[in-house]
């Protein structure tokens, strides 16, 4: 995926050339101006998607770079969410302190799960992490300190003088954190640690002979991706205003793994695209019957063949179908699709340019 650069430091630089700068400034401007044009509930959707993107960035480091599988990341999301809320309500910690603290707590658990991961690979690791995720929600659901099955109401967070009451204020905080973590993940991925991650993924023995501490980097990948999920959990709590064990299910963990694979393993762009897509689907699952042309058709089909009461389940069918389709049709994931479109556009532009110069001659 990454082409060999002539300058060994070229791919470490965050931005190369004026074009990249212009694109980034434009992108940030669009992000900053979105709340002015979008209605509130759309901002909620964006916030929700951004939270998935943060988890996806962490999964990218763990699955894409280091080649380890986790089916328990909903557990880290839960740890982050509950740590943030409890630090705020029990210790009166400000949100800006509670969120990083929650990330640290989550990273600690990630480190703990990383320990058995040292000896386990593939499906064995998948099952162990799956058990971890189930255990977290079960423990939260049964202890009164965590609000049990009834869940916890999240107090309104404040950032300095700003109260995070509405979706707009939340949007700016979440967008800021997401962009910041995106840059962090990208930098981690292309510098020494990220290279060590990929060396471990490609061959543990080769990495070890080159002086890479395999055990350290494998557990580090777990801890870092857990920290990302922890931050996402804290933000999720603030966004939805209410958390309960029912949110952090096994299927959510499946979605987290699926989204980086759909995006295209090993690329940050893919992780971001895949996560945003799956986040959107996960939130808007019930909205399929409200689509303009498809909606009424689905309703008729439900009445005749399926059942009307079960109509909301269409979302599961669509999500599952899209996941299968993504892999069957585009093995490189969304990132592969992106690269192909980019190449096509570049090709068109190149041909157009030649034609123009040809006309001039």
């Amino acid at each position: 995926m990454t082409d060999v650069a002539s300058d060994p430091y070229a791919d470490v630089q965050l931005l190369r050339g004026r074009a990249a700068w212009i694109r980034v400034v434009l992108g940030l401007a669009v992000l900053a101006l979105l709340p002015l044009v979008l209605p509130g509930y759309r901002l909620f959707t964006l916030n929700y998607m951004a939270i998935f993107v943060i988890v996806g960035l962490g999964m990218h480091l763990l699955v894409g770079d280091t080649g380890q599988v986790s089916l328990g990341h909903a557990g880290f999301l839960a740890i982050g969410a509950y740590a943030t809320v409890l630090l705020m309500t029990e210790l009166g910690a400000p949100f800006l302190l509670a969120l990083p603290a929650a990330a640290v707590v989550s990273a600690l658990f990630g480190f703990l799960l990383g320990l058995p991961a040292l000896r386990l690979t593939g499906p064995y690791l998948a099952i162990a992490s799956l058990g971890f995720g189930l255990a977290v929600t079960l423990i939260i659901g049964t202890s009164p300190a965590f609000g049990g099955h009834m869940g916890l109401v999240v107090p309104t967070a404040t950032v300095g003088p700003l109260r995070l009451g509405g979706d707009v204020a939340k949007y700016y905080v979440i967008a800021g954190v997401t962009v910041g973590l995106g840059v962090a993940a990208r930098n981690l991925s292309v510098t020494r640690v990220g290279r060590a991650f990929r060396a471990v993924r490609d061959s543990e023995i080769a990495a070890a002979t080159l002086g890479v501490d395999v055990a350290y980097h494998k557990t580090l990948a777990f801890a870092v991706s857990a920290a990302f999920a922890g931050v996402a959990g804290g933000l999720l709590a603030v966004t939805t205003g209410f958390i309960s064990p029912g949110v952090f299910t096994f299927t959510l963990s499946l979605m987290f793994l699926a989204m980086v694979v759909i995006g295209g393993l090993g690329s940050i762009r893919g992780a971001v695209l895949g996560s945003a897509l799956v986040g959107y689907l996960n939130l808007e699952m019930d909205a399929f019957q409200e689509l303009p042309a498809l909606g009424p058709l689905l309703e008729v089909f439900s009445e005749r063949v399926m059942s009307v009461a079960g109509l909301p389940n269409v979302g599961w069918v669509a999500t599952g179908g899209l996941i299968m389709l993504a892999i069957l049709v585009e093995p490189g994931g969304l990132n592969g699709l992106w690269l192909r479109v980019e190449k096509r556009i570049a090709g068109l532009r190149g041909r157009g340019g030649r034609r123009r110069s040809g006309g001039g001659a």
Partner: protein
Amino acid sequence: MLTQSIAGGLSAGSIYALMALALVITYKATEVPNFAQGEMAMVSAFVAYVCVTQLQAGFTVAFTVALVFAFLLGVGFEGLVLRRTRDPSHLDLIIVTLGFMLTLFGLAGWKWGADQRPFPFPVSTSAVVLVGDVAVSALSVATIVIALMLMLAVFAFFRFTKLGVAMRAVQQDTVAARINGVPARRVVGLTFGISSVMGAVAALLTAPLITLDPTLMWDPLLKGFAAAVLGGLNTPVGAVLGGYLLGVVENLFGAYVSVEFKSVVAFLVIVVVLWFRPSGLFGRHHERKV
């Protein structure tokens, strides 16, 4: 109390063992843990349900139809979906099974809703059989006996028939099997069919115990996975023993320690076991060579 718990554990363990064995035979053939296996079984159970309640079919007909459906579903999933992926990685294939799982779950929920339906079954759930001085429900006895017979049949099939040997050959080394004239593709498809039938039997035995709804096989699937990992994903016999062991340990834990945490003790056990034996209790650990 103790023997009672063990008997209950063996009954639950039979289901886990069936799911684990179904998982292991496809895992050995393709190295893909099939996450859709539980939902495939659940849909098959719904097929039997529709036959009995809506088409007024007898149990023999209904169950036969369900098992045939399960077989076709397994073969179809392998041939029409799994095999269509272009130069897939293992992770790609795992995600495809996850996608199929969500699709089937959604379709079942769409068609039959989330209602918990009592599942008609020829063996009573309330009748009690005395085995020695232990009282066991007739359903438990039926579950244990049917699961054991089915698994023995499968092992015999693998051991003594030409097709079974071909399947084992493909599981061991697909390329070598192909060179020796085994039609590997058809054999893998058939393996998925047999696996799906075993899952369906597990579902038909689980549904009368609890009720039938689209989440029917979630717990058995996860426990089947846990059992297979516990025994060793590469050893069918180990996976079956893992299933029984898990059922008994879980039931004893529920009886003597805590009912609340009964459902996660399985995963605690496997984390501990994997810590000492990374390839499962009965799995052989292959030393890596450079």
